[in-house]
């Protein structure tokens, strides 16, 4: 039987991951259908009810991909419940009567090079170590450049004059990158688009509102899971800083952890599990760099974040940082989110105006 690969959605990273899988296996990689309300309905129908939302999204993705004819599924793993997702999802899908192979890329709590090589060697017997490393490096640079460009865009997207100018730019960047064959052309494309993104006309006031976006990884990266919060913020003309991205999770975090631990010594002696400690550190960082507010997102029932939340609340209170907590589940009541966001925006603008006036008073 012909093998067709599929993997669950994670924001824009489907492009680099698809490219990586194609380079490594030379098999057909299926475009998992975009997340819709049907996906989450399928997922939550078959998943246990008290599990966190990413499980349901991923399960919905898998079911839709299997319906389209995929038969090799990929799932990763992490520090929390995420590591056990793969096995439960495999059991559930088998119970539904599908026939497939299920591959977990990160079986332990971090990525292992040798393990990964053997997985892909099984899929593609012609794979050599040389091509394997080459493809991995390409994906590494692809993800890094994508994240870097994203960061530039996030600073400017709220103030664009022509609508969707940055979205078009990013789509073009992804299109060109997926066509390029080696790292040198990739780098060239990145610098070309970096220059272009700075040429897009914007109208940015000097004292614009700046908001930091922290929280759990899936709701931060997958825009459907957070109801396109970033787009909504951009519409309010707010500059956004988001920390969590794939390059951070895969390699930057390990390098950065000892430093963060030292900085938050007052509040945390040990790591809190998953991204708990990082989020405590980020509150301090955002305060130090003059941000106006913080938005914290997490899926309902995310254990590491629940453990970290009382600490985050305390830090934010001590630092006098306005913070808004969102807890997302599979219900899609978008109006409630809009109202809370609007109120938060009003609060930030009022606070900013007060600060501005008090400058002149003194």
């Amino acid at each position: 039987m012909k093998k067709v690969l599929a993997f669950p959605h994670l924001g824009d990273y489907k492009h680099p991951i698809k490219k990586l899988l194609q380079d490594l296996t030379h098999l057909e990689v299926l475009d998992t259908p975009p997340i819709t309300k049907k996906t989450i309905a399928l997922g939550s129908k078959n998943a246990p009810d008290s599990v966190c939302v990413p499980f349901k999204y991923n399960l919905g993705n898998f079911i839709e991909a299997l319906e389209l004819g995929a038969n090799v599924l990929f799932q990763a793993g992490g520090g929390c419940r995420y590591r056990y997702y793969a096995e439960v999802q495999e059991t559930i899908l088998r119970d539904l009567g599908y026939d497939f192979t299920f591959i977990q890329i990160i079986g332990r709590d971090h990525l292992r090079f040798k393990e990964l090589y053997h997985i892909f060697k099984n899929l593609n017997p012609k794979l050599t170590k040389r091509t394997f490393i080459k493809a991995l490096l390409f994906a590494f640079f692809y993800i890094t450049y994508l994240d870097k460009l994203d960061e530039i865009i996030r600073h400017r997207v709220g103030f664009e004059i022509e609508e969707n100018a940055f979205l078009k730019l990013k789509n073009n960047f992804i299109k060109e990158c997926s066509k390029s064959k080696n790292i040198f052309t990739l780098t060239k494309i990145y610098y070309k688009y970096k220059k272009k993104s700075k040429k897009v006309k914007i109208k940015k006031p000097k004292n614009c509102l700046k908001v930091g976006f922290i929280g759990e990884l899936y709701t931060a990266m997958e825009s459907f899971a957070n109801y396109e919060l970033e787009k909504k913020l951009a519409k309010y003309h707010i500059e956004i800083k988001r920390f969590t991205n794939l390059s951070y999770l895969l390699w930057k975090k390990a390098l950065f952890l000892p430093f963060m631990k030292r900085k938050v010594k007052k509040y945390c002696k040990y790591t809190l599990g998953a991204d708990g400690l990082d989020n405590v550190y980020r509150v301090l960082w955002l305060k130090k760099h003059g941000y106006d507010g913080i938005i914290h997102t997490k899926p309902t029932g995310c254990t590491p974040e629940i453990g970290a939340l009382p600490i985050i609340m305390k830090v934010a209170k001590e630092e006098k940082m306005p913070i808004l907590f969102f807890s997302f589940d599979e219900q899609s009541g978008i109006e409630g989110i809009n109202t809370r966001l609007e109120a938060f925006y009003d609060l930030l603008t009022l606070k900013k105006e007060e600060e501005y006036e008090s400058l002149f008073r003194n």
Partner: protein
Amino acid sequence: MKTIGLPKALLYYHYHILWKTFFDALKVPYVESKKTTREMLEKGKEKCIDETCLSMKIFLGHIASIKNQCDCILIPRIYSIEKKEQVCTNFNALYDLVRNVYPKVSIINYNVDVKHHHSEENGFIHLGKQLGFSKKESKNAYKIAKKKEKEHNQLLEEQGRKKMHSKKTKILLLGHPYNLEDDLIGKRIISYLKDKDIEIIYSYEVPKEKVNTCVQKISPKVHWTMNKELLASFIYFKDHVDGTILLTAFPCGPDSLTNEMILRKKGKNKVLLLTFEDLNSDVAILTRLESFLDMLKGGIHL
């Protein structure tokens, strides 16, 4: 000498023998908190967000009740008990959480993180150091405590084996020890079942050396040490009992997935899932329990 407070919740039920013998050997006085009450739960709820799991709320309530009776409270931080495995992330954050939520309470702690080379023995030596004992003294005390714990475990296993061959109706009560033994959660069920003259087998009575082989049959990749024991106990006891009751506290992270695994692979075994919340009444749970018992007996004969 400092008096140490042991809150009777969460890790207490995993480690109480070890802690108590350790402190006895060093002649350190300690106090335990009283049984869980509704009041404690209310106090714990004030201190954390509402999504926190029930066991954690109870734990925070215990700390509030005990903090004035002792000089410091023992709260260990546990990341991994065995290599390549983890525990629920609540235990990773437990120490820092309590430190931030109760800023005035002094806490004594030790760290167990086998993955990053902090073994349990080193943790206890560190604990002894904080109390002013030398390395040798605390090492000896740890050895005595560990021996006692082993004996206690053997006793439990022996009990389990004996109950397995009893002729009464047998029910496997499966859940974390801190849920089973808690007065607000498990004790109500246990007393009800005992009234009905039913032999109860607890999930922590599974032989420790059988855990790794048993768990391979149901879920080889599970990485929570504590849930591994639950899964293994289900496999070990399932053919010897008439029914299984799964006890969980409401938003329990690991349980939400492992219970699904048990429910999907239970085959012909009869399994009842009971989820406890902070605002439930006895009546609903007892009704379900009653109907489950009736089902085990093969239907209601009026």
